[in-house]
């Protein structure tokens, strides 16, 4: 093992548990993240171009709260599996990394200002939106920075010469394509979100509803094409041994890649055709495949350096079981609360 890579700690149960939990919770986080980032971009775009802002923009603060909340479990599980690399990468770029926290707080408040002041003080609202957007973009940039640095431990050594925590991973060739891939995907998913929101909130106005859905499905399709271009760039900007896993070197990864291409093509078609339901289904499957491919990519980067399968497990299952039980109970409680919230007063 490279001498600058710290030793990992022991994990309580087999690593695959955490791998599954990581993928599942990251998908949820990713969806919400796309909605707030893409939603903010769309809102700003509409505001600048004088159009009516997307309906669900009013829910941005709520989405921010849930996005941050749903960011917790993937961050937790990634630390369980890759903590020794993740912490080292974090320390290496500690200053911009810790600034994510005030950025999130201000961005969060910005989203509230945007929503609460839209009518009374539009300029202040726009400022809130811009500030919020910039800070969310900054947060995303830092997450990409940290994720990519985690994959290349040889770059940790930069810390030895510059221990002040300012070593951004700017030199990483895949950094910008990856970042832009995420941003454009977010806009695409957010457009899909606007369409879904319209579907549910404009039931009384079918014409307007279908117009909004059509417009945003087109936006979705175009941005999917753009993000596909950035995605391809991102893919090819990775080291040869990494991108080659999707070109036959790893059968599962290659199948997933092929599948994602086919589904993406089909999805663009259905979107242009204005088919909301089938497009959502496509998008969700593609997103799941992308998240799984991301894990394959991570493994390829860290090949010969580290694999979670090397982690020693204590075999302490009861805490996992308690968690799973409480997780299900928690979902039940959330369902119950939403039911209660949506119940009409007269019925109670």
């Amino acid at each position, binding site marked *: 093992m490279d001498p*600058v*890579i*710290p030793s*990992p*700690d*022991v*994990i*309580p149960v087999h690593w695959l548990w*955490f791998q599954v939990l990581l993928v599942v919770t990251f998908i949820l986080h990713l969806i919400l993240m796309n909605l707030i980032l893409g939603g903010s971009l769309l809102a700003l775009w509409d505001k600048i171009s004088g159009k009516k802002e997307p309906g669900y923009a009013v829910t941005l603060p*709520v989405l921010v*709260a*849930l996005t*941050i*909340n*749903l*960011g*917790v479990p993937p961050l*937790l599980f990634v*630390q*369980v599996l890759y*903590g*020794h690399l*993740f*912490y*080292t990468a*974090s*320390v290496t770029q*500690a200053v911009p*990394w*810790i600034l*994510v*926290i005030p950025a999130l*707080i201000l961005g*969060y*408040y910005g989203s*509230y200002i945007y929503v609460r002041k839209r009518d009374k003080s539009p300029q202040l609202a726009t400022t809130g939106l811009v500030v919020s957007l910039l800070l969310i973009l900054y947060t995303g940039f830092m997450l990409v920075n940290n994720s990519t640095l985690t994959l290349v431990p040889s770059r*940790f050594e930069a*810390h*030895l010469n510059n*221990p*002040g*925590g300012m070593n951004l991973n700017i030199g990483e060739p895949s950094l910008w394509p990856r970042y832009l891939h995420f941003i454009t995907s977010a806009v695409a998913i957010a457009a899909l979100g606007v369409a879904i929101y319209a579907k549910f909130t404009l039931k009384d106005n079918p014409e307007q509803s279908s117009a909004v859905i059509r417009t945003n499905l087109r936006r979705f399709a175009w941005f999917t094409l753009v993000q596909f271009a950035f995605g391809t760039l991102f893919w090819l900007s990775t080291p040869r041994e990494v991108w080659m896993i999707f070109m036959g070197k790893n059968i599962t990864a290659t199948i997933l890649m092929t599948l994602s291409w086919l589904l993406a093509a089909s999805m663009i078609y259905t979107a242009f055709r204005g088919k909301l339901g089938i497009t959502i289904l496509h998008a969700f499957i593609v997103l799941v495949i992308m998240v799984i491919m991301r894990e394959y990519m991570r493994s390829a980067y860290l090949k010969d350096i580290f694999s979670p399968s090397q982690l020693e497990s*204590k075999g302490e299952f*009861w*805490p*996992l079981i*308690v*968690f799973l039980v*409480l*997780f299900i109970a*928690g979902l039940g*409680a*959330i369902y119950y*609360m*939403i039911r*209660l*919230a949506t*119940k009409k*007063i007269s019925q*109670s």
Partner: protein
Amino acid sequence: MNYPVWYLPGMGGSLLIAIIAIIHVVVAHFAVGGGLFLVLTEHRAYRTGSNALLDYVKSHTWFFLLLTMVMGGVTGVGIWFIISLAHPAATSFLIHQFVFAWAIEWVFFIAEIVALLIYHYRFGKMSRRDHLIMGWLYFIFAWLSLFVINGILAFMLTPGKWLETGSFWHAFFNPGFLPTLIFRTAISAIIAGVFGLITALFRKDEALRQVILKWCAGWMYIPLALLAASAIWYTFAIDPQALANILHHNPESSLFRKIVINSSVILFGLGLFTLVRYPRKLQGITVTFLVVITFVWMGGFEYLREIARKPYVIYETLYSNGIKPNEMEEINSSGFLNAARWSSIKEVSDDNFLEAGSEIFRLQCLNCHTEDNYNGVKNKIELMTERGIEAQLTGMGRINSYMPPFAGTETEKKALAAWLYRELLGNEPEVIHQPEIPVLSHTRPSFDNSKDEYVLLLWNDIGMKCISDNDKILAFLPPANTLNAQLVKRAPIPEIIKEGYNLKWETEEQHLNPQNHTDFWEYDSIIYGKNLPLATGLTGSKLSGEMKSVNGIWIADRIPLMPYRDDGTYNPYPLITVTASDPDGFVVATTSAVAPVSTEMGCRNCHGGEWSWNGVSGLSDITAQNILVVHDKYSGTSLADEAAEGKPRLCQECHSDPVVGRAGKPGILSFSASIHGFHANYLTGMYQESCNLCHPSDPASATNCMRGRHAGFLDCTSCHGTLEDHALALLKGQTHLEKADRLAASLQPVSVATMEEINPRTPWLMEPDCRGCHTNFNIAVDGFEGSAYNKWVPGASALYRMRTDNQGMMCAACHGSPHAIYGAYNSYDPMRDNIQPLQYQGLAGTIGTHESCSVCHTTDMNTSGHHRNQINRLYEAVLQYE
């Protein structure tokens, strides 16, 4: 050590953690208590039918949501971020140990968020019953979040059975779990009360405002009893050492103790004003102040909790600097830099000496300290020398267990000390000046073996004598040099003259004005309670006078000698000449002996400052003040301030000491046990070198007081043991005192295998017995085992300086002073300590050696009348002829 260190020399990760944590902790507790506050206030509004109160609940919910969900939620993630940067090893440990606890906490957290969002956004849009259910659900989930986090936080200080079993459940339900859960629940309610005041102020209806203020006051005061009870319970759950550290030992905690006490008084004192009706603006000021104080109050609590854990970040598992206790042995043998993954230097060399020190500081110290800001190192070491810093590093984690021990080799320790002293403090490397020793001479009184009828034997009682010469600041050894004499009338069976004669002493020229060289007589009233005439000692002795016969021994008691000659020369060996006259006034004998006195105590080697006397000797003001500063820091005294106010103290006022004749104060260690016990923790593993650092026993010192015949082949440790041995025996003599255990806790004996084998001793009264080696007065035949260490004489009367032979002659009369046993060599004047043997027998050995019985006996002697192995003893090695 496993992880890189974020280099923040001016700020430190701890301060960043504190900033984020204090905000989060207050808001997070508010998120719990505030939830209950909302739902109960809503209940009350329905019960009283008050729409105005309900309106208040609604507006408070919005404030609550903005504060707890945004600030509370994100700062929670912020703590996670910042601890992973400042303490990655600990964070990794906690994440892996408690991953499912964190995951469970997340489940409660998301349920909490959903409940709150619904509670807020659906306020007035749901049935009362359902809305109240939502409020209760919010509170339950929020409290369950606290339940989970509390288990992890409490674990860090009280891991309990987990240390043995490694079980998740033992870790989570640790001894501190329940008391802290109750404690934090009570705090949550109190904070809910305080924050409830904020939105209450925006109510324009004065009557309603007053109702809410009183309601909030109830929230502040009702949980107080629970808070106090759980706090007391908690003190029983934590390690007594941790409790002692925050209550007594760790100086870092004193500020936060004061903060907690004062902020509690202000918070709960000022809080009472909420019950009184007064103008809204003033109420606004009061509430703002209460909110600020709440943050201060919580900050104080959290800081104390953090400090209680020190030196660990996870108790008994991981030191604050990321090193595990079980790694220490390996690191100390193979080197810290070698073991540190994130060091570009792997071994200390002459070329990288300071750079290596800097690297060690960065990797081992910066986790908690900054260079010169919060918890900065600079102001902690600026009074020390490089040697002192090294000692400080040695002592870390010993007496004051809140610091982790230094991890690394001796060379690495020196490199760190050098970097701290030279680079951080900006000092030049210390240059040790070799003192110039003046050449002195003496005139030896005559003796005619064929004519003279009397032999006068004179000696100093302890053979080496140090005095403290900065009474302006402190005192512990006054000028007081005692000489003993025996007068023998020569005959076939000589007679020891015990009374009726007159023995007068006189001090050597150049030493007759001690008052010009010390402020002893300026501060004698303050320190000793006596207003003495100049040049007069504590017992009234002057520089000349008549010896008194006490039990047949002639004594010149505590002559106030100084080692400073009037001509500016340092002479630690002034001569005292005694003239004996018979009852008719005829002079029958005259002799001289050295009265050793030195001010060359090496305090400055560690405590800084220069020598006060011509660069040779003497306790300078800076050195003395620095000593008091350290004493004040560790013992909570205010001696430095008192000295600055012109009230210097005698150390033995509190610390008992037979040699100064002070009983001290009950519960406090003797001076010897205290000073040796304390310093042994800082000067560990140094053998003779540690003796030399404080006492003038180094052959290269200006005094070089070890001048007896043993000097060539024995050192201090041969009889007294190493500093650790010496300290342990003294401390064992006072094991009834907690302080003795504390000082002894980290010391390992060197001369014996275990602490149990050490025989306790009383300072000055139970010294090493000469017969420890000289078993039966014939070492050449009998041999000996071990050393004199641990073979103490049983009491004062059995001391070498107090004992006699079979004929009533004192041991020291014939063998010389302790530490200057005849056959001595004095670096100022080679034969200065052998005046009498040379005067009476022409040989620098024991009186009577080499069949020199005729010194006293006027006939030939053929039996060992004084003790075994006296006659026919020709042990050449120890003889020095003039």
